């Protein structure tokens, strides 16, 4: 039941925060933090529980919902969702704290929406029923739409509409695919169900698989986003309030990545293999194009938004490499990008609160005035460019190693992305904190609240960089299972037995040991 409680606590918290907001904004904030903290503590108790070997799902609950259509309330938690849940609650708390001063109108409704989005996100990470998954998938949208549309910057209306329409349209395509999968499975086995576990073994012809998969891909690739479909992202990120950008970049994008790992790969093993070259190519295009656009921006927030496009390119590259190293990298990238990009957005927000502009050309030389802020900016820019010792480095390195095994060319091209990342990250530091003073801003350095928030994020990102092993250990069973399922089925489909698999899986731990020796 603990999984239901997680969602229920957030929903209750959301309503309480709204009601409390009528009388006192402070209580609304406190309620939000408390409900998120309770959830965080609950989920941490799960981490400390010993996990039974061989059991993929750490917690699994299956309740009846709409039995007439074979829809159930099936929630389950494995290593992958566990990590993402921790990330969600942690950043949830952070986003409440950073809104403390920024949001001061309609505070109750703000926190209502915030908690509702988070409830939708954890619903997405937990559902093992495709209908339920779609339900949560859509549930995230409306409150996010309000968050951008009400508390956003100048062009908020257009941005929020664009965000909603892009995601909704792609979501509906996924919905059709879910239904198609349902019927294909029903016709072949006679049991009509939306349950993920049962749908896993669905047999379908290659073309059917490809068509159905493309619906899912549409939704996930828009969310991720992948380059031709990324148009909504810079607008939404830029116009959203800081907490909104944080959640968008750090959590919402991850639902797309999660969808690829959880649904595309296991449900359509052979279709995914067919799509893999295109997927990897899209990833590389995303990495390079995103970096190029990031470099060209003059709006600080837009720049950070485009770095997301670039970083998410690594995720799709890794997902379609189909090996454990890459997958570990993908998981790490999801977490590290969440922290580092989230932190950069927070920094942009803090800067905006002080100088009321996001224009890079009007900044410069701020280090003198705000050394702490400058240092933080430096750290997170370094994280973004993949400096060893910080989480992103491990993530990107692992993805590149994994991709190298799948396609040498793609991996080499993706490496260029690291150089591009260095350029745009250094440009941030150069333009904002160092360089000439274009204006004589009179600003204060970070206050205690802001220092605590950024310090927390620094600790996490450094921790991930130096001690990544717990993350690997938690994610490993889930990833191995996913890969096994994929291999087994795609070989079955192609009529090859498992033993003929020419590719030898290099032990992942050998490599990680190598890395830590040096």
């Amino acid at each position, binding site marked *: 039941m603990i999984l239901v409680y997680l969602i229920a606590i957030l929903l209750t918290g959301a309503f309480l925060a709204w009601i409390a907001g009528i009388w006192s904004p402070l209580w609304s904030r406190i309620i939000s933090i408390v409900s998120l903290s309770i959830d965080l503590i609950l989920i941490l108790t799960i981490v400390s529980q010993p996990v039974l070997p061989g059991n993929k799902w750490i917690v699994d609950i299956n309740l009846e919902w*709409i039995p007439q*259509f074979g829809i159930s309330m099936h929630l389950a938690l494995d290593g992958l969702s566990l990590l993402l849940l921790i990330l969600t609650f942690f950043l949830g708390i952070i986003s409440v704290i950073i809104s403390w001063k920024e949001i001061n109108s309609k505070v109750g409704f703000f926190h209502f929406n915030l908690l509702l989005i988070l409830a939708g996100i954890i619903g997405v990470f937990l559902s093992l029923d495709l209908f339920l998954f779609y339900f949560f998938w859509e549930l995230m949208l409306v409150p996010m*739409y309000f968050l951008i549309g009400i508390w956003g910057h100048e062009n908020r209306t257009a941005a929020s509409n664009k965000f*909603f329409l892009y995601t909704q349209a792609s979501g*509906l395509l996924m919905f059709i695919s879910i239904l198609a999968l349902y019927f294909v499975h029903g016709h072949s086995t006679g049991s009509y169900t939306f349950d993920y576990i049962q749908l896993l073994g669905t047999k379908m012809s290659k073309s059917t698989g490809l068509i159905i998969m493309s619906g899912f891909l549409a939704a996930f690739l828009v969310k991720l986003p992948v380059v031709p479909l990324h148009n909504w992202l810079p607008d939404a990120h830029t116009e959203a309030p800081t907490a909104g950008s944080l959640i968008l970049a750090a959590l919402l994008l991850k639902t797309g990545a999660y969808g690829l790992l959880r649904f595309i790969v296991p449900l359509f093993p052979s279709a995914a293999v067919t799509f893999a070259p295109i997927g990897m190519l899209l990833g590389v295009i995303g990495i390079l194009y995103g970096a190029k656009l990031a470099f060209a921006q003059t709006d600080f927030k837009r720049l950070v938004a485009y770095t997301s496009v670039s970083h998410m390119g690594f995720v799709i590259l890794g997902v379609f490499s189909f090996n454990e190293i890459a997958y570990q990298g993908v998981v790490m990238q999801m977490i590290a990008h969440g922290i580092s990009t989230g932190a950069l957005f927070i920094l942009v927000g803090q800067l905006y609160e002080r100088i009321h502009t996001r224009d890079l050309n009007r900044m410069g030389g701020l280090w003198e005035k705000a050394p702490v802020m400058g240092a933080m900016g430096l750290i997170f820019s370094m994280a973004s460019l993949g400096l060893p010792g910080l989480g992103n480095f491990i993530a990107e390195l692992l993805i590149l190693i994994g991709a190298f095994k799948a396609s040498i060319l793609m991996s080499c091209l993706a490496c260029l992305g690291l150089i591009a990342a260095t350029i745009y990250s250094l440009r941030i530091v150069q333009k904002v904190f160092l360089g000439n003073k274009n204006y004589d801003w009179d600003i204060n350095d970070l206050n205690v609240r802001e220092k605590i928030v950024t310090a927390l994020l620094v600790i996490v990102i450094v921790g991930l960089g130096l001690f990544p092993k717990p993350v690997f250990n938690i994610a490993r069973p889930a990833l191995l299972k996913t890969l096994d399922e994929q291999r087994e089925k795609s070989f079955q489909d192609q009529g090859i037995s498992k033993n003929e698999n020419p590719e030898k899986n290099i032990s992942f731990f050998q490599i990680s040991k190598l890395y830590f020796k040096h």
Partner: protein
Amino acid sequence: MTVTDFLSLAPLIIIAIAPVVIMIVISVTRNYKVVYGFSILSFLTAFASIFFIVPAIPHSIEPLFVIDIYSLFFLGIIIFSALLVTLLSYDYIKQLDGVREEYYIILFTSTLGASLLAVANHFILFFLGIETLSISLYILIAFQRSKDSSIEAGIKYLILASVSSAFLLFGMALIYTALGTMQFNGIVSALGESGQLSPLVISGFAMIMVGIGFKLALVPFHMWTPDVYQGAPAPVTAYIATVSKGAVMAVLIRFFFNIRGFDNRSLLIVISGIAILSMFIGNLLAIRQKNIKRLLAYSSIANMGYLIIILLTGTNKGIQASVFYLISYIITTIGAFGVITLLSTCKYEAEKIEDYKGLFWKRPWVAIVFTLSLLSLAGIPLTAGFVAKFYLIFEGMKAGLMVLIISMIINSVIGLYYYLRVITAMFSPANETELPAISLTGNITLCLITISILILGVYPGWLIDIIMKFVNL
């Protein structure tokens, strides 16, 4: 007629007696509150009586009536929506000058017409029902005699509805000529004997489709909708959008399935064409509207387009899906028009999108109801509209109607765009306009609607169960 006959018609009889009683009361003394209370009471009694006649069915009174679970279900829907409209009308009608009590009389007669459609098994009753409904609607639409737009809408509806009735009547006559029967189930056996459809029968069906198309506002018979929706008093618009369309849908489904229309290829193609056209034209025209009533009018055109997809499935499951969709659509539409009604006065109709600017900050509760209704119309999760659309797409896909389903999906996105415009307006900064206070009954109705939208959106299993168990043709 036997006692059972009378008993099984109890809801209709109650609805027929109520206006007579009101007339008598009015002739003695005009008391708005008494009339209002009595109307609600009568609707409630009529609604309750439906449950008491369940043991007596299926019962048919040859040759006109058939009272089975299907008709009872639709009777329930019709009477319940009429009740909701009545609840909403209190303030709006109260502010009118001059005659006000008559509004409720006509509400009853039109509901009687609508109810006749639900139990019709014969062309005569079909026509009688449609005419009773339409004639009452002319009066209701033009009820605000002091307002030009209201009169204009009334006349428009009068002319176009008469034309459509003429088509309907002519179609019935043609079929009668060809087959010699006017009973729905007689037609199918008559058709079965001849096997091939004669041109006479086909043109008869076509004419009937034209007539029904007018009533449901399907493209290309939709021209009247925006004007009438805009000109009619807001509660009446709610009534047209829900009760009238629901009743016509009830008779259409029964007729279509009785004659096994889904076996006829040409009919299928025509209906698919109408459905796709209705969706696209309705939604595309809605995009540029600045008037919410017009916007909802176009959205209703599109919604009816979605709904008639179900005719093509030709299965009981399809009917069940359409019933669920209809219920959710009616609740949602009454919610949306209810908000418009409650924010309007007889002097000033709150119908421009600008009127809703900043509504959320001035009247959060009303704005939430409106937002929920619009999101439900758009089919966003947590709302009844989502489950309804899912159900419809589900059955459509099962029947392999991929082209229709895909155009429905495309249209859902287009639809979302203009609903979002209204929602955005509600959440934008407030302007300085006075809003009328909302009465207790209004609040209760909105509350009922909100709860229903959410319950059907989150936990629809029980209603689907009921529908699956009972709604069969």
